[in-house]
């Protein structure tokens, strides 16, 4: 006990000079602000979202090969097509990087170009997904056909919804830039949108691997 109480009396580590009392302390770096508040918040949200996808992916893995009737993955997948749209989604991350670099330089023209390109790449991916979904349902797979249908549509559907949300976000940034509301002090908000966008891409790599690339079970 004595030891523990002792630590009470150790002197404080040197603290930064009092910043005065101009602001309510918002966004102001605390004792260990390695990340600003909004960025830390985004990282935390993404950590949480990882588990969201993790749970859906686990369900998909659990139910692999359990479909009883209706079409199976083997009969449906068009790997070259999905690989192509996946590649486009991955390339969009490059656009995001360039957009961020542009806004950090204060180059709004380039920023708008790249952010729009990123959004369009994302939209192409979503269009591919819509095409794929209609194709599958034309071939007789829907949510209630078999476990593959349930777990496939729900998992990829929620991922697609994430991409759509991201596209909306990117377009909003584009709009703010055209209206001159995206000053240099707002570059961080682009960075945060970028974190989200890259995350959605990385999640797709995992989903793509699990659904399309892993050898299909069964005969």
């Amino acid at each position, binding site marked *: 006990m004595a030891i*523990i109480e002792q*630590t009470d009396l150790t002197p404080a580590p040197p603290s*930064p000079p009092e910043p005065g009392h*101009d602001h309510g302390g918002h966004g102001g770096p605390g004792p260990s602000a390695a990340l600003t508040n909004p960025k830390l918040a985004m990282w935390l949200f993404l950590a*949480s979202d990882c588990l969201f996808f993790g749970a859906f992916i686990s369900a998909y893995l659990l139910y692999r090969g359990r479909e009883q009737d209706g079409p199976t993955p083997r009969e449906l997948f068009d790997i070259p097509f999905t690989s192509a749209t996946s590649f486009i989604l991955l390339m969009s991350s490059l656009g995001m990087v360039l957009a961020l670099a542009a806004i950090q330089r204060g180059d709004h023209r380039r920023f708008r170009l790249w952010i729009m390109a990123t959004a369009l790449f994302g939209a192409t991916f979503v269009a591919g997904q819509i095409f794929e979904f209609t194709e599958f349902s034309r071939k007789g797979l829907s949510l209630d056909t078999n476990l593959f249908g349930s777990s496939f549509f729900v998992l990829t559907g929620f991922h697609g919804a994430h991409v759509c949300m991201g596209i909306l976000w990117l377009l909003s940034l584009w709009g703010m830039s055209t209206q001159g509301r995206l000053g240099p002090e707002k570059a961080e908000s682009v960075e945060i949108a970028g974190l989200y966008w890259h995350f959605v891409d990385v999640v797709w790599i995992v989903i793509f691997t699990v659904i399309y690339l892993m050898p299909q079970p069964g005969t």
Partner: protein
Amino acid sequence: MTTVEKAPPVSQREVGLLRRPRATTGFASWLTTVDHKKIGILYVCTALVFFVLGGVEALLIRLQLFGPNGTVLTAGQYNQMFTMHGTTMVFLVGMPIAIGLGNYFVPLQIGARDVAFPRINMFGYWVVLLGGIFMYSSFFLGGAPDGGWFGYTPLTSAPLDSGFLPGRGPDFWTMGLILLGVGSTTSAINFIVTCINMRCPGMSLLRMPVFTWMMLVIAFLTLFAIPPVTVALTMVFFDRNFGTLFFDPAAGGDPLLYQHLFWIFGHPEVYILILPGMGIVSETLPVFSRKPLFGYAIVVFSGIAIGFLGWGVWAHHMFVTGLGPVAISAFGLATMLIAIPTGVKIFNWLGTVWGGSVRLTTSMLFSLGFIAMFTIGGLSGVMHSVVPADTQQTDTYFVVAHFHYVLFGGLILALFAGFYYWYPKVFGRMLDERMGKLNFWTMFIGFNLTFAPMHFLGLWGQPRRTYRYDEGLGWETLNQLVTVGSFIIAFSVLVFIVNAVVSKSRGQVAGDDPWDGRTLEWSISSPPPEYNFAEVPEVHSRDDFWHRKYTEDDEGRLVPLPSGGAEAHAAAGHDGHGIHLPSPSYFPLVTALGLPILGYAAVFQNVWIALLGAVVLLYGIYAWAIEPAD
């Protein structure tokens, strides 16, 4: 316009349809406030209303079970009562009260002027309130949820037209819980960022008060526990409404997947409920014993250890589902292990009280009551970890007894300890101690009358969630005792409410530091000014405020410092001018309003309502994004 006139500062520019609200008093100010203290009060008051609702449901359950073959409720109504009772107590009482107290006191304890995200903070509150109203509106819209608070599949996931749970209740339940999950996730993020980035100079992590520490731990638990249950609930909703087959055994689906996902959330959830209580008594016991917390670091680290181990024991809720001997042995063992850090804490608290100069205030009585009752609940918990014993106990009243000893005897008693301890800080007046003692003793006696006999009833075979029992099973007397006990609890809660209302205007004036406190919240006036700290404090030790008041002489006796709390007085001279605080905002409310509308759209599968919800939500988000942060 001439050049002499300055352009209005950014924060006064108007955005969208709604003008930036300015009022800081009056009704409207409560709708738009971003002050963490007001939000804290809103959380606690809202949760107390739900506490009364959940209590009324419990009383109805107990009236039904007063004698054999009760006729107060039908079987269907009974199912709705225990489902809504459990759901309310966990999601609309336990979590919001803790979040409310955390909202109020975490920034004060770490010397911050506000939380990291004031508007997101308010958003979280609105989601909880609207989510609760959403769920309760089911009573008027075709029947309340009736699948139990953990909503096991395939009962809850059987398609709507299968006739198993025919009402809309289960859909309100899944959507309501998903909504509440959004709220808790946002407040978890807010707490973490606040604790990490907003501490005042010198407030290293190992100087943070234990209550703040526990709020940080549960914020992490919330962040990672909500997604699995969100996924599980989504699957249930899809199964019921859109024909997916996730939990349909006939199609190869696995109902146990639901149980895994639910309890991966559910077990951390019980720690989300109890850790704030442990944090509260770790504040009150030292103050009322005039001793530092015995083994601060150990208390903090065992809290963290509980947080980690809590992820590895979920399957102890599934011992009788046929997981196989290896799995259940492992989970039984892990469950016994988790009792160790818990037991350590109990000894820390006892060590704190031991040899101290104890003041038996109401808050202290509730704290001591907490230790005793929580220990009993913990012991019956260890009994559950022994698989063969649990096989006998599961789904009987023994389980009901166990979790009420930890939830009511643990969480609720600790929360009351917190109410009596912090009320003077919040309202500037003391709660009446005489009524307080009445409150404590009736609650303590009523609680034990209600829940102790349930141990025996359970071991004698009375099943839980069953709306009546036959005569002649030997259960009559104890069931009557239980029901009488539950009405004593209700009386006690009434005493508290009267006390809280009356004391607000007539209570004895508290002063800044009525208990001779140790932590920073006692260094400022009661109630605290809007900006909390006129000067951002600088902290030099753990329990810094105490060390500003007292020093020790050579024999270790306390000697008051002549300048005791001088800084507080110096600061009082400061009128707080020039401290910029974030402006109030409508948009957290608008954004949050979009969510229940989307919820109704999902339950009734109506595209137009969905569209409306989406428009409200998007309007809220955009207006919020454009509105300057402060």
